[in-house]
């Protein structure tokens, strides 16, 4: 019985139909688990705002569409388009700095005709690893110092432009997506370790050049209670929400921190705190497990990809997805400073849903366009 069930599942996932439409069933299943759970939390986090859940569902549907469309595109075309895309997006980033529109003092968007707005930095999260993977595709691995320095140059320029918008979270993720390619390409451990050893010195130098308000932010991160009503408020309240959730949580829609608005940005960046409060450690573990499923499948795809380009790209995209989740949960639970990074596929809104779903489209393409061996 057991055997036949396992075989049936296996035959379902390997069915030719899925191969035909270029869907990776396991990845898709893990994504659906995550997305479904996310909508469920959002309903609570938004104060049972059905309209908000509908808008989010619509956005996810578009993301799914983008995912499926990209999955049809064979990796070799992506590879060919990579440098041109990189240059194009980099020019758009310059455009953002010159013509950009924005809110709250940040310029992140380009206005398109018809009232649409477009955030090039978001696309850079995908284009950056594409570019670096393209660069390494025809070069022998592991990279030599010259290649490493070239790649660092390719990473730093757009990252600085994004950081200038300013958008610390996105620039961080873009940089990370580039570094992951470098890492997967076999960057020598001694470089990595010496970079890690340099970090304290770099940190100290950075501190010297920081504005007072920036230093204050760092200090508040280190001791949120020092400014309980100001910037410390968010982190104190989110820790309170998480901690008060306990092992099993207070129940769906029963979290007082979330439902009584003590939790700031409860439906966007801090949505995990809502889950933590209402479903406790158990709920959080299930969510993190769902993420790990997605990531495991992504890494599997990367490891088994056909060529260096696909391997490096798939690996970097998957790891970047993990960084999203790690940075978000880390900041909400108070082990990382608060940078505006949403919880991928769960936080409400943002262009990030489309980008992330595009990522998974690329992964599916890499997995499903392999020549039969």
């Amino acid at each position, binding site marked *: 019985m057991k055997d036949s069930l396992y075989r049936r599942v296996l035959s379902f996932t390997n069915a030719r139909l899925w191969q035909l439409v270029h869907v990776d069933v396991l990845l898709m299943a893990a994504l659906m688990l995550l997305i479904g759970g996310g909508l469920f939390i959002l309903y609570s986090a938004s104060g049972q705002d059905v309209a908000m859940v509908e808008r989010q569902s619509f956005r996810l549907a578009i993301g799914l569409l983008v995912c499926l469309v990209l999955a049809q595109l064979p990796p070799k075309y992506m590879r060919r388009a990579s440098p041109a895309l990189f240059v194009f997006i980099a020019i758009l980033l310059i455009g953002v700095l010159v013509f950009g529109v924005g809110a709250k003092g940040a310029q992140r968007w380009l206005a398109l005709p018809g009232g649409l707005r477009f955030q090039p930095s978001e696309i850079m999260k995908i284009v950056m690893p594409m570019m670096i993977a393209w660069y390494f595709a*025809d070069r*022998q*691995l*592991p990279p030599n110092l010259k290649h490493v320095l070239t790649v660092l140059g390719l990473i730093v320029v757009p990252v600085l432009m994004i950081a200038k918008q300013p958008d610390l979270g996105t620039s961080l993720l873009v940089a990370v997506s580039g570094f*992951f390619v470098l*890492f*997967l*390409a*076999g960057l020598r451990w001694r470089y990595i370790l010496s970079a890690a050893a340099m970090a304290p010195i770099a940190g100290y130098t950075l501190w010297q050049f920081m504005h007072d308000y920036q230093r204050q932010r760092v200090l508040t991160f280190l001791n949120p209670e020092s400014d309980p*009503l100001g910037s410390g408020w968010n982190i104190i*309240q989110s*820790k*309170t*929400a*998480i*901690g*008060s*959730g*306990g*092992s099993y949580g207070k129940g769906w829609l029963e979290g*007082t*921190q979330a439902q*009584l*608005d*003590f939790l700031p940005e409860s439906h966007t960046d801090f949505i995990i705190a809502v889950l*933590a*409060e209402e479903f*406790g*450690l158990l709920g*959080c*573990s299930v969510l*993190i497990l769902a*993420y*790990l499923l997605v*990531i*495991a499948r992504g*890494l599997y795809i*990367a*490891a088994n990809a056909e060529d*260096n380009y696909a*391997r*490096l790209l798939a*690996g970097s995209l998957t*790891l970047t997805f*993990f960084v999203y989740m*790690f940075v978000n*949960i*880390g900041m909400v*639970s*108070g*082990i990382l400073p608060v940078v505006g990074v949403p919880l991928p596929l769960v936080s409400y809104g943002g262009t990030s849903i489309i980008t992330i779903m595009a990522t998974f489209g690329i992964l599916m393409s890499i997995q499903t366009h392999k020549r039969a061996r």
Partner: protein
Amino acid sequence: MSRRHQNFRNYRQEQQLTQRRVIAAAFFVFLLAVTLIGRLFYLQVVQHELYQTKADDNRVMLVTEPPPRGLIYDRNGVVLADNRPIHSLTVIPERVQDLSKLQQTLSNIIPITDGEWEDFYDALKDYRRPYQSITLKSQLTDEEWAQVSVDLYKLDGVQVEAQLTRYYPFGEAFAHAVGYVGRINAKDLETVDQLAYQGALFIGKTGVEGYYEKTLFGESGLNKVEVNARGRIMSELERQNPTPGKDLHLYLDARLQQYAYDLLGDYTGSVVAIDPSTGGILALVSKPGYDPNLFVRGISVNDYSALRESKKLPLFNRALRGGYPPASTIKPFMALAGLEYGFASWTETYFAKGYYQINPDGRRYRDWKRTGHGWIDLERSIIESVDTYYYQLANKMGITPIHNFLTRFGFGESNLLDLRGESSGLLPSNEWKKAKYKEPWYPGDSVNVGIGQGFMVATPVQIASATSVLASKGHYFYPRMAKTMGDQTAEFENGLGDRHDIILKDQRNWVRITDAMRKVVTDSKGTARRLRGTDYDIAGKTGTGQVFSLQDDQEYDAEALDKRLHDHALFIGFAPAKAPKITVFAIFENGGSSSKPADLTRQLFDAYLHDDYPARYDYLKGQDNER
């Protein structure tokens, strides 16, 4: 992309390299995921209780609802302390974008003083829950209220709150008896339940308002509510309605009080009237008084210093704290003491010269009648207020029996049941003098005490109370203000009990002494004979209290003396003499002749016993005559 180059590449090796790196990455992913779960475990399991408490503290707020304060009525149901609605301007600072801008906008609408802003900013610095309002200006006038209300919608965070405030309709004549409430200050908060008084504006400070604070305040409602982060109440978790303060019904007679106050005229002084059958205080006057309403509002510095610096001491409660020599009003008590201890008898006669000497060549203690009274007995010594009789009696007795006997009447101790701050006066004794002056008691000291002078000091309440005991023939009801609180009989804190009767060795002496006091009025030589002609009997005793001691050879010349040094004029009396319904003590400071307090007393008797007050007091008559 040259073919040549590709030939040197080992694709297999490169694939293994990236795969190893993927595995390394997977390891890091796993490690970091475990870190996250570890962090969540720490917060949700290890520190769960701490954060549970924090979350509850966040959402649960205790809102106290101050109860309406009990009203204070006189015996006829006249409201002496009332509640009136007022409107206060309050601000929730969290809802205000720019305080200095608000300050400007508001000052264009209604006048707000710098002091009010200062108080506001002070309160802002103190600990408070976010989104709790702070009073900016209390007691808006109707006009101000209207003006603010019009613009309220534009003023974020500003609101008008309605509250009840105390109002004393009859002002100064009642200030010392009823007292007043004032704003709660930090010192007050040390003695009361801070939570209960959280939303309250006022606390009883003096008089009945102060003593019966607990009763009048009632119990604050306690509302446990769930609030959201903006302080808005989302739901009620638990509610305990406020219990309104109990009403107080006093023995005080508003008309008698006001009448007595007015009868003092321009004099400073005090009048205390007591119902001897209960100890209930019918009037407690200290003149001058002041407007207690000033204190409710928070008295201005100018008003306060004017009251403080006035030479007439309007803030000084003479009835409770004024220390006066009882003078000749002590004589009936001295006579009873002499009888009790066998130093005097009704039959013995005494030749009263114009003076008394302890030793043949000693100091001459003079009688008020320089020619002397001739042969007199005990009764006559009271009727004619013969000083020399009491000089010799006191000298014979010595201070200890005097002290012991007068103590039984409440001299030398405060025994007013329900007002605070009563002075104990001074009933001197051997021990007292030794402790105070390190000197023995001299016979001359006794001689002076014999006529209520010298060291002896008593308060108006004490003298009135002692007189009531006399009037009721030893039934000693401690003086008291309140009859009932709510439905209950008033309760007192000082543990004195209710009454403490005095039994004499010969109880007939009560009647004989009051008879003698009746003759003070009826006898042709009685010192209060001007009070003759009432259709009820008055028993009384006059007194003239020396503000300073005359030397042997000095003449008392009222005209020549500064008014400040004029004798105090005192009178004690009760009526009807056989079954007294009212006892009055009156003192006119520097009033000279005792005719003034005697006349006042008679007018009060007339009014009280016949319920016949001048028509101008009809507004104090009350509707509810049952009380």
